[in-house]
């Protein structure tokens, strides 16, 4: 398709098609899935169910925001799932003995547990950052390596069994409590979203993430410390995944080494459906959260429509590929229009 054809396409395209070129595929997917699942199940479009979707989607949304940073800089992070796991295990292993020894000091137990867990998860991100930014290891190998290491450590620490003994207050505060009928994890996610939005749009650091991923050499020539920002992308990605791991632990009430296995792919899927470029430099955090919500929505909808969980995997895979193809089509038309 050359420019003329593209112009002709615009001349004859329907308003709907033009809207697609402007806003991308995600809003359409959201609307379509809402309609489909509403017709499939009467329970779908109830406020209670939508709140459930929001809570379920929070964990993925947080991880996806971190994943987005890695993608923006032109890499990706395959270790986010195991960061969730090791955070869960360390959080539980810190809290359980403290809670047993000092049953009255719940607040301190929770704070220390969260700090230890999130710290451990973030540390994995630091290692990723050092490998990618300083030693130029490819993000694929680096994060695959740390994923295996983290998983091994988590399994060794727990012998593969869930860690019990977390104070109930942890689950109550960070998972089950509601303010104005909205579950607490949703507030945490909203807070992180606002912080990410400000970081990416209103600070130098955010701007540099885009620039470094868009053209590393040009960024270096513009006086940017490219290694530092590459490093920071993986650290922040690790920290966000760790926060998700802590929240998930509050939800499960146990420390588990086996959680988060689908996080790497789901988070990349959420980003890509949300329009983040796999080549780096492009993406908006709002759409990434919407992408995560979309994935949560179809999982929930398929549950309600009693679609087997194995088959759900197939549907998500197909949707991901379709979203990428649709996005490429859109880029193609946009590029050739040049106003």
């Amino acid at each position, binding site marked *: 398709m050359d420019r003329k054809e593209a112009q002709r396409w615009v001349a004859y395209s329907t308003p709907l098609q033009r809207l697609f070129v402007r806003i991308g595929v995600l809003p359409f997917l959201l609307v379509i899935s809402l309609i489909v699942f509403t017709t499939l199940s009467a329970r779908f479009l109830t406020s209670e169910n939508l709140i459930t979707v929001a809570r379920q989607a929070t964990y993925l949304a947080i991880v996806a925001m971190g994943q987005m940073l890695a993608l923006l800089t032109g890499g990706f992070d395959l270790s986010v799932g195991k960061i969730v796991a090791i955070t869960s295990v360390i959080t539980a292993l810190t809290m359980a003995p403290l809670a047993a020894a000092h049953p009255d000091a719940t607040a301190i137990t929770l704070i220390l547990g969260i700090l230890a867990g999130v710290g451990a998860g973030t540390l994995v991100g630091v290692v990723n950052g050092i490998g990618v930014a300083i030693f130029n290891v490819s993000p694929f190998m680096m994060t695959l390596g740390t994923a295996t290491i983290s998983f091994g450590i988590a399994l060794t620490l727990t012998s593969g069994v869930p860690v019990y003994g977390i104070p109930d207050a942890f689950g109550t505060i960070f998972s089950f409590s509601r303010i104005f009928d909205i579950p607490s994890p949703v507030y945490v996610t909203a807070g992180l979203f606002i912080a990410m939005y400000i970081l990416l749009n209103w600070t130098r650091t955010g701007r540099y993430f885009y620039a470094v991923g868009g053209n590393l050499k*040009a960024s*270096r020539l513009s006086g940017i410390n490219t290694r530092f920002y590459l490093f920071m992308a993986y650290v922040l990605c690790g920290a966000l995944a760790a926060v998700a791991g802590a929240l998930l632990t509050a939800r499960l009430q146990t420390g588990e080494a086996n959680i988060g296995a689908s996080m790497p792919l789901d988070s990349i899927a959420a980003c890509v459906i949300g329009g983040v470029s796999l080549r780096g430099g492009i993406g908006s955090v709002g759409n990434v959260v919407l992408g995560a919500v979309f994935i949560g929505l179809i999982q929930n909808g398929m549950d309600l429509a009693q679609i087997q969980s194995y088959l759900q995997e197939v549907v998500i895979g197909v949707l991901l590929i379709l979203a990428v193809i649709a996005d490429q089509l859109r880029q193609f038309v946009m590029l050739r229009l040049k106003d």
Partner: protein
Amino acid sequence: MTVPTPILQALTVSKQFPGVLALDQVDLELRAGEVHVLFGENGAGKSTLIQILAGVYSPTEGSLRFRGQPVELQGVHHARTLGISSVFQEFSLVPTLTIEENLFLGAELTNHGFLDKTELHRRADDILKQLGFPLRPRQRVQDLTRAEQQMVEIAKAFRTDLSVLILDEPTASLTDREAERLFAMIEQAKSRGVGIVYVTHRMSEIHHLANRVTVLRDGKRVATLDVAEADDERLLQLMTGRVISQVFPKIQYRPARSLLEVFGLTTTDYSVRDLSLAVRAGEVVGLAGLVGSGKSVVGRACFGLERIASGHVTFDGRDVTGRSAREMLDLGAFYLPPDRREEGLVMMRSVRENVSLPWLAARPFTRFGFLDRGSEQSKVRDVADRLNLQPRNIEHDLERLSGGNQQKVLLAKGLVSTVKLFILDEPTVGVDVGTRVAIYGFIRDLCEGGAGILLISSDLPEILHLTNRTYVMYRGDLRAELEGAQITQDRILANFFERTRG
């Protein structure tokens, strides 16, 4: 003297693409043993013409004659069997295979259905030896330098009996000394009676290599000249359709205090040796030389991008040897890289983000630790207006801008802050005349506004008409420093090449 018979002729060839007439009744005649340069701006039709000669496209109108006989090329492969081979800027090599495997790719030698590796090796070795290339057939292509890969590509052309060799801007991405080796190879092919079509927009290469030059403009052939008649002014005038005085502004030089001083600079890879130069405020200093003369390395070394073995660099009175890009920017020096896509711009981001990128840390772009997008916008919009950027919307991503406007954005990066010294490396590469004139106008404004400018350029007229002082480099050494009326084409060219060539 009889006129040699042409090997390849294009007769009133036209090529219509949807919406564009890329070539309009162009004639071209290539003789055996000559280097025929195709010269013109981007979009003048050079690539379309060579793609027709190479069999990539078939002409919409007109015909080709090969050794006097009409011929219709069925494709690149067909052309190659006739002995017409082309080396485009995009190589057709498989990097993970060896040289010999690449040379015979698609024409492997077999023995009872199995690969005859011994024979393949022997023949590949023969070809490389004949051409005098310092390559071993079993080297992997990915381990070779760009020039060596180009040699493999050329050797591939020699696999069959070669009579026409088409080279598309072969020096575009060659560095140190690689270009010289290529030129030697071309001389050799010439002496064997090969006719060479050579596409370039670098005038210096024309004087070095060409026998004849055909100038194209807007898809039409403007003229075909013997190289003796093709002086730069004439070529530029033919290429742009304008007289020199309309292209180059008159600059009032007011050399003041010294800004940049380089003493005895030698880089760790010896691509620059013991070089000293100085740039003062209020002047435009040229740095001329062939591709690979090391002139680009000088600019990079001053900006902390090359490793310095010895010597030192001072800027505005302080020693800045080996300082990083960040420090140089903060001190008020700006470097414009020669390849905007590779090192200059973040193509998928907006004009605004690209222009402000080097300066975000300081006011007015950052306030209380947060970006001040309002003043960023107004600042960038001002510069976009001054440069007459098209389209004016600074939120467009760069992919959507023309090459000329992209180049303006690259220059704009140096205009939103107080910059005392501009190091411009090939500032007008691959842009149209309109942009060229605009950029030259800016160089004048900057110089008259008291900035110092180091203009690194392979474009001879640029050096001749814009600089008040010029250094000429040859193979990493400083050959000459010319001032004022001394800056003439002859004097510069005399220093471009081996002394023995006169």
